[in-house]
């Protein structure tokens, strides 16, 4: 017999791998994605396809340039997922080049400049989103009213025109997402109850029948997908809970103090962007802390920052910036918040005999 391979143990494996993780996330994103594609019609489908394809193309190009094994690394699904998440955060009728530029930024600057998978400090999709938001404030906030009645009525040919031609017809672009609407009307001096009366039902917001990013409108579907992710043990409950909890508590406190200036807390949660962030973006393995306590600090930080940016920032939506800021804190959190070593105190000293940790 030939000599078997000499390697040290363990000689068995859990069979759980990177591609399966990525696949699980994509599966859980599918309901919200399909809903978004349905209600924003063909232009959204085209934009989604272009963005994901561009992300993958950029990944392959970068891997080839870096001399890494293209066939193996490009099929791990990470670039597809990045493109997917980015596409869901774009305005559904944005022209093709926004998607392509975003995908390029995400993969090249957000990921491969740092050294590729696992090496990036910031969430690639959020890097792209933030850059696009700063560089193209108008294109990135051109929302369309949802529903087959208006958006879905476009034929495929018309959709080609929207995505690859001259852009969205002016009359299709409705003003603002719910949060920007609240903010601008408050700025205009309207009272809170008047504002709330004007923005449609809370139920519509929660279900996603409002203008917004391609895949971020339906808080309900994103929540369901997120819960599925937790049940599949791809993510733990810590980050989503602390993001949502911190945001809710901060908003509730502000609302209790000044109900005329701050919307009720559940309006914050009804925006799909928060659910998307809490379950799918903030939980990105690469850019979030490792330990439970670290994750909690990180999640709370994101929740609070979202509230601060939404309430006082220049942008109506603060998710991207909140995530990026906390991404920057992740190495610090990981360095300070460590698991306790068995038989040692948190400080690293051996336990005393008879001590209970």
């Amino acid at each position, binding site marked *: 017999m030939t000599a078997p*391979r000499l390697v040290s*143990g363990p000689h*068995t494996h859990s069979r759980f*791998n990177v591609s399966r*993780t990525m696949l699980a996330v994509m599966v859980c994103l599918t309901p919200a994605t399909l809903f978004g594609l349905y209600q924003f019609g063909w232009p959204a489908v085209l934009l989604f396809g272009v963005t994901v394809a561009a992300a993958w193309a950029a990944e392959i190009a970068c891997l080839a340039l870096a001399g890494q094994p293209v066939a193996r690394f490009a099929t791990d699904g990470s670039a597809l997922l990045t493109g997917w998440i980015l596409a869901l955060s774009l305005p559904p009728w944005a022209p093709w080049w926004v998607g392509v530029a975003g995908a390029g930024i995400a993969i090249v600057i957000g990921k491969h400049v740092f050294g590729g998978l696992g090496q990036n400090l910031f969430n690639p999709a959020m890097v792209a989103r933030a850059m696009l938001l700063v560089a193209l404030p108008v294109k990135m906030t051109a929302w369309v009213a949802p529903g087959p009645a208006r958006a879905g009525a476009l034929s495929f040919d018309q959709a080609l025109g929207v995505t690859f031609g001259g852009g969205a017809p002016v009359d299709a672009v409705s003003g603002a997402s719910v949060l920007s609407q609240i903010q601008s009307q408050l700025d205009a001096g309207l009272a809170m109850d008047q504002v709330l009366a004007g923005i449609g039902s809370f139920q519509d917001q929660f279900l996603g029948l409002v203008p917004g990013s391609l895949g971020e409108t339906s808080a309900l579907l994103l929540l369901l997908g997120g819960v599925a992710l937790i049940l599949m043990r791809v993510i733990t409950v810590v980050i989503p809970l602390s993001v949502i909890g911190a945001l809710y508590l901060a908003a509730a406190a502000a609302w209790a103090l000044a109900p005329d200036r701050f919307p009720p807390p559940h309006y914050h949660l009804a925006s799909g962007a928060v659910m998307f962030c809490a379950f799918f973006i903030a939980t990105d393995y690469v850019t979030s802390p490792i330990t439970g306590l670290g994750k909690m600090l990180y999640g709370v930080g994101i929740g609070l920052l979202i509230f601060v940016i939404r309430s006082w920032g220049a942008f109506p939506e603060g998710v991207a910036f909140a995530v990026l800021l906390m991404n920057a804190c992740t190495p610090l959190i990981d360095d300070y918040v*460590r698991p306790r*070593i*068995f038989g040692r105190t948190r400080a690293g000293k051996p336990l005393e005999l008879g001590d209970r*940790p």
Partner: protein
Amino acid sequence: MSPVPLFGRFDPARLFSFKGGVHPETRKHLSAERAIEDMPLPALLRVPLLQHVGAEAEPLVARGDTVLKGQLIGKASGPISANVHAPTSGQVIAVGPFPAPHPSGLPVTTVTIRPDGADRWGPRLAKPHVATAAPETLAAQVAEAGIVGLGGATFPASVKLNLRARYDLDTLIINAAECEPYLTCDDRLMRERADEVADGAGIMARALGVRRVIVAIESNKPLAIEAMTRHRHVLDHVLQIKTVPSQYPMGSEKHLVKTLTGKETPARALTAEMGVVVHNAATAHAVHLALRYGEPLISRVVTVSGRGVARPANLRVPIGTPVADVLAHCGGLVATPERLLLGGPMMGQPIQNPRVPVIKGTNGILALTAGEARDQRVMPCIRCGLCVQVCPMGLTPFELKARIDAGDLDGAARVGLLDCLQCGCCSFACPSNRPLVQTIQYAKGKLAERDSAQHQREEAKRLAAARTARLAAIAEAKRAAMAQRKAEMAAKKKRAGQATTETAAKAPIPPAPSAEAPKAPPAGAQPDVQPAAPTDAPTDVQPGAQPDAQLGAQLGALANAKAGAQVEARADAKADAREAVE
């Protein structure tokens, strides 16, 4: 985590185990229903004299000798060592180096016996009356029988039975968790020989003088639990049979103690310091055989399994049987195995040469096919944190690996490198298939090597400094002697000159001022020179007698001793880890 008083009446083991761990596919069904059968004697037995942690046993037989079954052929040397006995009767055809059952394949002194087929017993060991014998007598008998930890750690069992002298012990835990996948030898032993295992546990409890004996069995062995429960009344003890969660590495000594008692063993401490001693179930059975029948440890139950084996089985194999013979007895290999292992798939050792023998610590022989073994393709770390979640020691394996890869061994040591148990949960769970525990093993070896090199350097420097000081002292002494002699000569001359004068009464005349005089130390300094040298050097080197050659020899000897100690220390560490995860 301490049980809340409200839950006090519940069994803590059912509520808490330990943080981390994994649940690998056990695949115990392959061999769990195969009753233990006796392996027939092979054509040759190769019995290594180092099958345990510690010093190699001294051979008592030579080529051509005839031995009887159970005859002592290797005598324990030193405090940590174990006797080796002939597994059958026959003729010694060689005593010399043979590859050890270890991945390195390095040779150890091995006694090769050609069985005569008669399997004739020599005189049995003495059988003290267990119920009345002194604890020391029981422990001595266990030592006499060459019994070592049979969970794979192979630490001499008698040493652990003598801990009573040093620590205040109250609990003996019989480790029957058998958390490694595939292995079913302890399971079968308990199902078929529960009374004997229980009796062995009772004897060990007597030897240790403990009041409580717990038998810990993982929940995936219900029949073993049932059998042991039937035989829990033994000697003056009632064994507590406890079911522990099926979770790897439950067999780790410290984690088992934590699960059963809620007590966490401090880092770098022994469980004995908390009053708990852990022995393996198979060890208990060997103790029973030794004390009740006077049989030394000459065979053990081995699980032969894996999908690469035609007929998985549990066999009682004479120590020294070549692995190839055991595999052949099980119908041979059905395919070229991806891995051939001794031990379980989590911590087992791969072997290259199937002619190596089964030894006391061999609890399994596994032939894993490619489908069972792990994929070799490594992906980048995605910081998913799974390795941190599953680490039973609370370490951050991904970070350790990153630091080690960057050459930062000190940084890795600072974040817990040396606390690693090497159980392999991290590598098992890693979705990117990264060699985490393997890198940690490498780094531990590297660190030990570096520390030893540094120690040697420092020692050399110290000795060199001592030599310089000694030579300086000798030169100084010579100068002082010279000065004194000069002074004496001068005094003599003076005395000769003044011989006629009557003022000879003031005899001690201060030496005349000369070139050397100011440098000469006071006369009292001279005797000090000799003792000064020995306090510097560990062994006295007589000044003047070829100091260079002696120093060189001394350094060489020291380096050798150091290297030896290092190897031993490393073997210890490894055994610790193995013992930890029986």
